């Protein structure tokens, strides 16, 4: 065994924080889903749909998602470099500052401080804090990698490095603004140019927060939890480079049929179609990794989380490019289809994979076994059902909306008023709240399992068990 120590407290701190913000984000998600069919649930000025929706997206993307990424990346990086973090004190401060920032972010969004850029709503003072947080993270990650005790960098480290670089560039550029007081700023960019910058950012925020970091987890924890090595190293290499190359060309698929110059839209659509290849490179790699022994889906309870997770990623990356095509975009753009797409990614792929990674990590750092595989399985099925119901109902109502908007009478007039179309959404919006409740129940089982595991184990402040990759 090795003679080095891991800073498990910080990892644990990030994981618990991320779970906490996850609960906040999900509860607000349920609330806004109710506001969609019961407007009396709007409580002005702070708790109206327009303000709360961004608390939901930011809470989950940055509080839950990025919180989990910080914690899990610290965990993975220490194991893959076979050494503790170079700056454990910095990591601890990083944790405190992260929580302060997310709390301030939530408050400021409730208060209506909003740059109106999707996934970059936070006003400029908080943008600066976010950049500081990211630099602190980057310093520790790069420092630790530089001083690693394992020469070869494993696949997950490639994705980690790409994430750290890409997010830094994206976040800084899209948030450039002229301050107009402490709580208000105006984007540096205007008009169609600001749209182009925003969706270059928006699409790649999805790419480098909901894709590459999750792939880093997938490539690390899938072999760990199944005991099977990744199928093909060469495929991993090809998939990595083509993914990070192609992603950045595709932002304008969010702007199809807008006044943005056509050539940018067309280029984005073409690269979106190409993206199927690298995405499925990882999907295939995952499937073939488990292929030698599919019985592990039953015997190793985490296997099914990862395999279902990567399956949703696979579906997502076929659906996404399809949506980018003009004829399809025409129909589904602006409709509820898009939240259907979004939540297959976030609830299916991201949450499934992150939760499984946490299930793997918590017993490891507490020197124990998972509290209950049965509870984990219940969690799995509830989350699966909730997510499928959510996405399927939204796909149906999205297509219906798109079709009603386009329907014309024989005499050429529009067949449905806007309100007639809207009224037809209500049954589906009710169903969506129900699926959200089922999903939330599943997450409660997850949280219960995590806490019971922690109660049963004991955490040495610094673990001496040097887990080898």
């Amino acid at each position, binding site marked *: 065994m090795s003679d080095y120590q891991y800073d498990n407290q910080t990892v644990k701190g990030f994981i618990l924080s991320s779970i906490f913000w996850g609960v906040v984000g999900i509860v607000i998600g349920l609330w806004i889903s109710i*506001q969609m*069919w019961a*407007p009396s649930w*709007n409580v*002005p000025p702070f708790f109206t*749909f*327009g*303000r709360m*929706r961004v608390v939901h997206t930011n809470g989950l993307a940055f509080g839950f998602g990025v919180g989990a990424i910080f914690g899990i990346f610290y965990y993975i990086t220490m194991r893959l470099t076979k050494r503790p973090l170079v700056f454990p004190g910095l990591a601890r401060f990083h944790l405190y500052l992260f929580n302060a920032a997310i709390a301030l972010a939530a408050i400021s969004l409730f208060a*209506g401080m*909003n740059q*109106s850029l999707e996934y970059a709503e936070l006003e400029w003072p908080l943008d600066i804090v976010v950049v500081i947080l990211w630099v602190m993270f980057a310093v520790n990650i*790069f420092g630790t*990698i*530089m001083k690693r005790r394992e020469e070869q*960098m494993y696949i997950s*480290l490639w994705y980690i*490095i790409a994430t750290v*670089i890409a997010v830094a*560039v994206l976040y800084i550029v899209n948030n450039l603004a002229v*301050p107009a*007081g402490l709580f*208000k*700023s*105006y984007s540096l960019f*205007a*008009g*169609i*140019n*600001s749209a*182009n*910058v*925003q969706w*270059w950012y928006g699409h790649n925020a999805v790419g480098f927060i909901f894709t590459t970091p999750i792939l880093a987890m997938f490539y690390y924890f899938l072999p760990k939890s199944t005991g099977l090595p990744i199928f093909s190293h060469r495929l991993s290499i090809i998939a990595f480079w083509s993914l*990070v190359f*192609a992603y950045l*060309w595709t932002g304008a698929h*969010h702007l199809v*049929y*807008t*006044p*943005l*110059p056509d050539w*940018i839209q067309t280029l984005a659509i073409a*690269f979106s179609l190409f993206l199927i290849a690298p995405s499925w490179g990882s999907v295939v790699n995952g499937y073939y990794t488990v292929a030698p022994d599919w019985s592990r889906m039953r015997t190793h309870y985490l296997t099914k989380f990862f395999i279902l997770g990567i399956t949703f990623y696979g579906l997502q990356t076929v659906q996404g490019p399809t949506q980018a095509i003009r004829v399809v975009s*025409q129909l589904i753009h*602006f*409709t509820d289809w898009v939240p259907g797409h979004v939540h297959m990614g976030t609830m299916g792929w991201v949450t499934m994979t992150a939760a499984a990674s946490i299930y793997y990590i918590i017993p490891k750092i507490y020197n124990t076994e998972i509290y209950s595989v049965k509870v984990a399985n219940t969690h799995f099925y509830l989350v699966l059902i909730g997510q499928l119901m959510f996405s399927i109902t939204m796909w149906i109502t999205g297509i219906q909306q798109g079709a009603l*908007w*386009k*329907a*014309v009478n024989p*005499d050429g*007039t*529009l067949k449905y*008023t*806007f*309100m007639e179309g*809207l009224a037809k959404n*209500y049954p589906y919006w009710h169903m969506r709240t129900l699926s959200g409740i089922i999903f939330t129940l599943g997450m409660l089982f997850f949280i219960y399992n995590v806490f019971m595991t922690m109660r049963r184990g004991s955490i040495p402040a610094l673990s001496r068990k040097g887990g080898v990759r």
Partner: protein
Amino acid sequence: MASDIYRKPIMFALVSAVVILVGTFVTMFIPMMTPQMHPRLENLMPYTPLQLAGRDIYQREGCNNCHTQTVRPLRTEVMRYGEYSKAGEFAYDYPFLWGSKRTGPDLARIGKKYPDAWHERHFENPREFYPESNMPSYGWLKMHALDPASVRSHMDALAFPYTQDEISALQGRTEMDAIVAYMQVVGTAVTKKAGGDVKPRVSAPEVRNPLAGDPAATAAGKELYGENCSVCHGASGEGDIGPSLVDGMFLYVEGDLEDEDYFEMIYNGSEEGNVEAGRVMQGGMPAFGEELSKDEIWSIIAFIRTLQGK
């Protein structure tokens, strides 16, 4: 040799940064440096202080989470919302507010579609007009006074021109006034092109109402009137947000007009400065030509005639 890169983190970071930035450079950075990304319609004006204050509220309240502000060049979309969006309309939008979800209707052409009073009542309680609407109520904006000093600093940050009078005039105005002022300017650089409107006004197919006096049509017209017109013209045409339909005046001039003029008014709606039978409009009547069939419009006119006791 190539596999060395997986042992050299700095090299790896540099190479991946370059690979990541190629697409950024081609699709984002290069276009930004060219004039095609900075077009501006000639008659587009920067926001006035009151309009900007309204736009700030639009941002603060996250209206863009439910409303888009871009009409795609698709036939039914242009029918529903109006002329499709032009690249040069958004030059003063820091940033654009096109949105990505249409829970409510597109607002790219909302400017001058309705009278101010309609907006105030709608913001106060959207369900008064549309019982099935899920839009939050914003009546509380009336209780919040504007702060002229902060509006001025916002104008300064954007380097938009303004006069001291415009700033002083904000004193005593509310956030409701501001959001309505913003609504009324959105998208008007296109519809208000110099020399009149984009869409030519459609003429009535007949001079006299072919369905006049038809009992079935009158009954259908009553229903359609209740759904589409009574919010502005009152349940029995007595007038409210819009003018009375039963007072023997038409477009503010004594003397009623022909069925064909009613038809054209309903079909085309009104824009300030448009003319019907020599009478000048003030604007604020929405167009119904894309939503109601010709027979439906004639039915409504048949019903209005019964209100007038004709």
